[in-house]
């Protein structure tokens, strides 16, 4: 008895694109998100820190 085994169409191998071949090496590095939002009340602290940045120079000029 001849039995024909019908197989599904062989999936075409995905053609490697240049992007796949030339992708940068995987070498992960942790890059934590920085905190940039200020807690309440920090505005005056920022103003004070700005003044402190200038103060030494102004004292020297004086």
């Amino acid at each position: 008895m001849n039995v024909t085994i019908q197989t599904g169409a062989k999936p075409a191998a995905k053609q490697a694109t240049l992007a796949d071949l030339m992708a940068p090496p995987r070498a992960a590095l942790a890059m934590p998100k920085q905190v940039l939002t200020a807690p309440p009340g920090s505005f005056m602290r920022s103003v004070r820190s700005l003044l402190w940045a200038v103060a030494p120079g102004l004292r020297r000029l004086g």
Partner: protein
Amino acid sequence: MAQNAPSRDRTISARALAIAASVLAAAAAGMVFQIYGAADGVGFLDVLRSTLIFFSTWWLAWGAATALLGLTARQRPAVARIAGAIKGRTVVIVPVYNEEPRITFARIAAMDASIQATHIAAQVDFAVLSDTRDDKIALQEQHWFARLLARQNGEGRMFYRRREKNTGRKAGNIEEFIASSGAAWDYAVILDADSLMEGDTIIEMIRRIEAAPKLALLQTLPRVVGATTRFGRAMQFAAGFHSPIFARGLAATQGRTGPFWGHNAIVRIRAWAESCGLPELPGRAPFGGHIMSHDYVEAALLARAGWLVRLDDDLEGSYEEGPENIIDHAKRDRRWCQGNLQHAKLLTAPGLKPWSRFVFVQGIFAYIAPLIWLAFIAASIAAVYWVEIPDYFPEANWPFPTFPNDQTPKAIGLAVGVFGLLVMPKLLVALDAIFTGRVRGFGGIGGSLRAMLVELGLSSLIAPILMAFQSRSVLQVLLGRDGGWPPNNRGDGGLDITEAWAAGSWISWLGLSGLIATHLMAPVLTLWLLPVGLPMVAAPLLIWWTSHPAGPHAFPVPEDTTIPPILTRHNAVLAAWSIAAPAANATPLAEAKLG
């Protein structure tokens, strides 16, 4: 002895001098105006105008003080550098976003060849980070990358990847690369798509950052090249002639905190990864969302973490291109405006160095300054309109008139002072260029002075137009309109009159309306406002005229006569790649053999 960090004492002195000089100049201008305005009694508009004059003058004086600091900055001691073998691995990052791939990849080929020509044994790889949204351009990118690989034998040291989503724009593009591949290298040279750097310069940057373990970022001063139009050439001349001095002054005040301009710089990848992960800001664009002007923020974050951020203005061989017409300039400026105003949300970010906060303030001021001038003009028109007619006979039964105290000399003195703050720094830079011999590259003494005067005239003509564009940008941002991220135009820049009219006719109507209103409400001011109003009326013509090619000898720069080797290499690659143009439907891998 070699020094890696600017001296703290010198930085503090420079900051104090710049602040004191600019605040004194502003206070003097405000007081003179107050005396002038108060001659007929102090009114609300007088106080308002004095305040506006104070802030406008402070901004002008700040620029002048920066130039003076740049002119008087002493030669910095030589910085440390590794003289022997380079150990660190470096990747040159080229983010692209809908750019013309052939030109961009030819730049990479030229830089790679230039590095190899140094015969220095150093691992310097390249990574093209595509955020291109247009699939056709992306296909072309793959094609030209294949050509690049074949030409430079770059397999294994040249990489290309395209993101599916351009989250976080350029900053997000770089961040994704560092997070997924950054550990493969020690340093990254960050470029723009239009950047070009000599191989010698890249190697020297690596030597310097390797010798300074606390140095996280080393910025070069890129020179603008490749301009052809009247506008582009004038900007290129001004940048080449004046920027080195202003940049030195800026570096003197920023000390260890910057500046960083987002490209043509080398960074220490570990420091970058630890410190520069940018969060999304709360709220919607334009103030919330992704940080647009990320470079200032990244410099501030590196400084916050204790790293050193330094400008080495002695490094030659670093180039970029500039906008070729006023419209492209205004488009780029719209993006920068939104980014800088967004920094208002970061002024109170925890832990930042105070000077980093002040740099944000400066960036914001750069864009609101035109609005302050506009407000001053409007207040002046209103003040004349509502002025009370002087009472020449205040005393009854006294036959002789009493004339008001004439304050005209003070007004003229103030105008001369403000004009001086604008022009004096440029004249001093010219004198410095003459004495140091720098003028040779800019057409000699006569040629450079002629070019400077023409540039001064041209920039005075287009200043009201740029002021109008800037004011519109600020108002759009304040009204909550997001400008998006339009790709840069890098063509020849030529505009036809219909394009110029479409972009600038609103400025004409604004200028014309302003002049008519002034003539009706305060005729004595009409003459004073003509230098602002007439260029606005002629905006489309000026936009059109300045977008056309300049004469061959207009606005000379050193690169006209001594073409940098990297430009020659770039032109050679472009010429080779023009001869064998690709088939539009060719597959990239098949073409990799073409070279």
